[in-house]
Structure formats: C-alpha cells, structure tokens
C-alpha cells in the first residue's frame, strides 16, 4: 500500500504559519457541523457509483471498494468556516481509480451523498492523485459525524467540497452548482485564493 503525503514537498521547510491559508486559524480539534440529520449507512448496504455523462456507470460494494489499492494521505484540511487542521491522516482509494471505471470526457463532476447533499467540481480536481474516497481517519473507521462510512477527501479545496456520506460521482458536461454553491458559496473554493463566497475572485 502506498503511503502518500500530498503537499509534503517542502513541508519540512515550511512553517505552520506558511501552511495556513489566508483568513484561517489552526485547530487541534475536528469540528463537526451538518446541514441535516446524520445518515447511518450500514456498510453491507453501502455502494459507490460513478456515472458517465453518457449514462454508463460502474458500482462498487463496500468489500469491492476495500479490495482496491489503498492509500494513506496525510494532508492539511481547510474549512470555509475558517478553521484549518494540519497533518490529518486518512486511508482510502484514489478517485483516479474510481473515475477510471467509466469513460468520460466531461469537464465537471457532481459528488452525491446519501442524505441528498451535492457538491460540484471540475473533473481535473478529482483526478491527478489529489482526491480520495476515504473510510478511515487517524487509524480508525470514519465515524458517521465525520461522514462515515466513507467521504470524499479533496484537501486542496475548502472542506465542503469533501462530501460526507458520499455515494457516487456523476460526470457532467455542464457545471451544476451543488448544495452550498447554490446558496452563496463559491463555485470552486480554493482556500489559498480565499474563494469563500459567490463573488470572490
């Protein structure tokens, strides 16, 4: 199993202050907030489906997902509510592996969750080794409060893009704003450019 530390390049020479995006503060805790009741999805009823823009799809059961190559990313995460957490440790499957399940030339993707939550991303942001479907945090199964049994991990964007309780990815030719993007949050959400709100540059 690969052990990855995206963003590790130069980390030894970068102070924590330099790793903190503008307008953020560091936290040791792992805050939780939801936009609805916490869904509890048993792993024997869990599945993850990737759907192409032409309707083709590929699904994995929990056991099939766990049999895929596993990676252990160690990353900094940044919430739009201004907290950042350094060196978080996860385990899961690269979205490169899952996205390869369908043929697509779409420019965008919508992540869809069991509770109806959605978030939109450029396809380029879920490929290239910088996005994962994760099922463990700090060595333990991911708790429902934090999106378990599995959530997305896309640490180079604000954490609302890392959809909790995710059940699939749907590739789209048009950009389809998601749950928070439709209600005033930025379409892309780059923490280093402080893209919090709809009209941020």
């Amino acid at each position, binding site marked *: 199993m690969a052990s990855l530390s995206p963003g590790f390049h130069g980390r030894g020479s970068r102070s924590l202050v330099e790793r903190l995006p503008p307008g953020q503060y560091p936290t040791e805790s*792992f*805050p*939780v*907030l*939801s*936009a*609805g*009741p*916490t*869904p*509890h*999805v048993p792993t024997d*009823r869990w599945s993850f489906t990737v759907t192409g823009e032409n309707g083709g799809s590929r699904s994995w059961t929990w056991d099939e997902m766990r049999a895929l190559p596993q990676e252990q990313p160690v990353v900094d995460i940044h*919430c*739009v*509510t*201004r*907290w950042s957490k350094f060196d978080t440790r996860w385990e899961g499957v690269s979205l490169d592996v899952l996205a390869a399940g369908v043929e697509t030339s779409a420019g965008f993707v919508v992540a869809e969750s*069991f*509770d*109806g939550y959605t978030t939109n991303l450029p396809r380029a942001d879920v490929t290239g080794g910088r996005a994962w479907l994760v099922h463990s945090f700090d060595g333990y199964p991911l708790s*429902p*409060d*934090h999106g378990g049994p599995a959530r997305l991990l896309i640490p180079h964007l*604000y*954490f*609302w893009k890392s959809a909790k309780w995710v059940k699939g990815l749907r590739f789209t030719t048009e950009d389809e704003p998601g749950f*928070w993007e*439709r*209600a*005033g*949050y930025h379409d892309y959400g780059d923490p280093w450019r402080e893209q*919090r*709100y*709809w009209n941020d540059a």
Partner: protein
Amino acid sequence: MNQHPAHHLDGNCLAGPLAQVFALDPTTAWWTCPDCRTASPVGGLHVYGPEPGLTGRCPGCAQLALRVVTHPGHLWLQLGTGRGAFRFPLPPSPSWSPSDRTGEP
C-alpha cells in the same frame, strides 16, 4: 439508510436573520411539507447550523424547507428544494452574524 436525530437548533433561531428581509415575523408562518404533509410553523422547523448556513428542515421527515446563508454584504434565502436562491443586499455591518465558528460543512 437510518437517520440519527443529530443536533439541531430551534426554528425560532431563524427570527433574527429572516427579520432582515421579512416585514412580518417569519417564525409564525406555517409550512406544509410536500413529502410527509407535516404542517409546522417556521419556528418549529429543525434547523442545522449556524454555519456554513442555517438549514431548516421538516420536523417530521427532514425534507428541506428553507436555507438562510449570511455573508458579508448579502443574505441568501432558498425556499424549499428549489435550485434558485434569493440574494438580498445587506448593510455593510449585518445586524446578525453567526457567532459560533466551530462548524464543518
């Protein structure tokens, strides 16, 4: 899929932010859930938040009833499950703003 009755706020917490855009007290308005037909005043909704936004849901089935997002200079209001949201301009210093900054979306 089971749903856990996660922490939610009293719907009356919507009074402050919505008072910025409604002439009448919005928490006394009644809403009927299009899914389970539960009828409830806005003050009886289960509200999740306050950040990244206030999400009001049916107390019977958790269907989305409304969302209120307050950002510097703007208040966003989405009614029901519609895809569109109304964006209201706010004074430079909003009279209400989230004070609990401990949330994760």
